[in-house]
């Protein structure tokens, strides 16, 4: 591992998921080429084709994307935890289970892809019984949420964890909009407190540009139906919009372009379970005292588990999430 004055040794890996987080890292506004001044990328299979032996000498910062869905994912998580000073969950899949976690709602798949050894044919890593978030398998130091993480937060994490105050001012364009702990870390070069989530400190509603009027809607609208694409709060229009239950940091990216939030930054800090919070938030938009009417309204909400826990089912659904062990 690196000593003071040496470049930070960096590893990047994706388990089960897409490559969007890694592509985001590659496309960080052309700043990726500057990384060479601060870090030595010792392990990045997708871009460099480096083998696992490359992490044996130790890594300072490991960026881990993707959910844990196979035994190879689990081994990768354990290996990078063991060999890294700092392990970072990057993206909703690693942070909360992400879209691959929805598979936990499906009936168990047939073992069509067997892991049986044959004389000359290769084997496959076995599928885990359930898709998991990285933190359900190993201890995680920092989290960069989002599906995929926004570029400014991804770059903020790089500045805070890799560049550690050495970055020239022109690279610190995102500091002004970051939570205090993260901004301090970037400018001072001191690591942010362990467990820091590179996101905002409130719920998405805090930075959503839409207007909340505290009006009761008393309806359930689906996104294909007519609603005001700009202006009014989507939840108050009767849509299931999870901004109220989701950690801020994206700047209301989805609501800003007229589609409801689906919670890819995970639950907001003060919330125990995003689904429970959503039930409460939706109920607060009802104005009826007629049991029959309420029952009819409730019946019109469909696939709540697949909606409320779209990106977080494995780790943030209080009823289903297994603990690490």
């Amino acid at each position, binding site marked *: 591992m690196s000593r003071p004055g040496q470049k930070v040794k960096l590893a990047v890996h994706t388990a089960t998921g897409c490559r969007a987080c890694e592509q985001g890292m590659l496309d960080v506004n052309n700043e*990726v080429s500057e990384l060479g001044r601060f870090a030595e990328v010792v392990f990045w299979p997708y871009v460099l084709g480096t083998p696992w032996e490359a992490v044996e000498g130790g890594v300072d910062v490991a960026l881990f994307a993707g959910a844990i869905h196979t035994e190879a994912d689990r081994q990768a998580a354990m290996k990078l935890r063991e060999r890294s000073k700092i392990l970072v969950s990057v993206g909703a899949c690693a942070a909360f289970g992400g879209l691959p976690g929805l598979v936990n709602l499906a009936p168990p798949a047939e073992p069509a892809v067997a892991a049986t050894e044959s004389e000359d044919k290769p084997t496959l890593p076995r599928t885990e019984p359930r898709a998991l978030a990285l933190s359900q398998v190993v201890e995680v130091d920092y989290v960069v949420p989002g599906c995929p993480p926004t570029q400014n937060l991804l770059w903020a994490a790089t500045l805070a964890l890799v560049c550690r105050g050495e970055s020239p001012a022109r690279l610190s364009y995102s500091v002004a909009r970051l939570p205090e702990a993260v901004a301090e870390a970037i400018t001072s070069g001191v690591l942010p407190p362990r467990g820091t989530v590179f996101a905002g400190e409130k719920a998405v509603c805090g930075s959503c540009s839409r207007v909340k009027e505290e009006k009761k809607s008393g309806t359930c609208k689906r996104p294909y139906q007519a609603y005001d694409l700009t202006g009014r709060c989507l939840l108050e229009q009767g849509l299931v919009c999870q901004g109220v239950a989701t950690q801020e940091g994206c700047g209301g990216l989805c609501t800003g372009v007229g*589609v409801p939030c689906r919670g890819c930054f995970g639950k907001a800090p003060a919330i125990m379970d995003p689904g429970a919070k959503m039930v409460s938030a939706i109920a607060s938009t009802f104005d009826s005292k007629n049991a029959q009417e309420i029952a009819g309204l409730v019946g019109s909400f469909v*696939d709540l588990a697949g909606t409320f826990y779209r990106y977080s089912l494995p780790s943030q659904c209080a009823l289903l999430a297994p603990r690490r062990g």
Partner: protein
Amino acid sequence: MSKVTFDSLRWLEQPAQVTVTVNGGPPRAYFQATSPRDAAALCKGRLVEELPRILSILSPAHHLCAAQALDRLFNVEPPAVALNMREALRRVLFVRHFLRKFYFLASSQESPFAELRSREVRPGKRDLHGVVQDLSRHLSLAQEAAIILGGRADHPVTAVAGGVSRSLREEHHPRLAEIAAACRDCAVRLSAFVREDVFPAGKLLADVQDIAVGPLASLSLAPEPDRLILRDAKGKELERFATTALFDKVALQREPWSYEPFAFLKDKGWKDLAAGSAESLFFVGPLARLNGGEAVATPLAEAERLRLVEAMGPFPHGGVLAAYWAMLVQLLEAAEVLVATCEVEKLSGPAPRTIPTALGQEGHAALESPQGLIYHRFRADERGVVQEAQILDAATANNALLALLAQRAVEEPVAQSKPWEVARKRVELSLLPF
């Protein structure tokens, strides 16, 4: 018997490895997708209008394809401005995808993260690092355009049933036009570099010049709506059929050593890949789209296509070099179309979305993504909950092709007892343009 695994191959959109077994005779290479990716299982039970956001896990183009399928399911015709915005996004995705592929190719000889500033730049000579920088810069521009059009570059959110979720802001119009022109100019510079410094000199691609699969049939979208063209290995049109008949013609074979199924032509039947027969196989993507031999509609791309024909002979082709060249042609075409699409009047209009009036129960769409043909078919119940999703991804369609390429790539190094690293690099460079 010896067994060697090239773990986590570079540049592939889904984690994969190649395992080579040698047992006295010729080597046998297994191209293995090592992560499960059952998108259809994720869709089942979801609200049908959510599928564009969910299926973007496969690639951003699936977001557009799913929205197109929803138009049909809800029986709505999107306004022209929405169709133009979707098309602009699709073309941006082409540009970004192909720029990234060439970025990987250009940076294949050494780490792209080496400190570029300290590099010696030789005056008067086209510098490879300059090319990497140029590609990197325009990748980020294409990403910016994708964010403007799609809300996000990966996992876009703006395509919805009946159109798009919002109109562009006034300031987006000049920016998109500026990015489109810059990407077109970058594509022109890249094509000159690749044509003059890479293809003839064999630089970068020296290891894979001889690798080809084929003859192999190809499948692509027909110019008329909702039709697909199946061409035989000689490029001759075998059949033109409705997109809805895709899974009548194509079946999927599961093998216990890969998480990705192998697509094949049903009427020919599945033949074990080890037998080396490609009779029942087909492929999709940039080269498949050009293998019909038809002219490309835009001038710069057509000129590049003709240069390919002049250098390599008429289509069809099955070689790796031709596949790289096909990417170049389609990068130019996408950039040219993007420039033409990003005109203020084409992307302006008050109503970006036609509101559906009722839930439908079935929708389908096929679309040419950068990676190749993709197809969706959804069936929903009366509440709009997905009961069944049939999805063909380009990775599934090309899985057999990649397996054959991996096999070809390892044969010569093993026969000549070259280091395994040579075989690995040949595999990676062979798979990159498909």
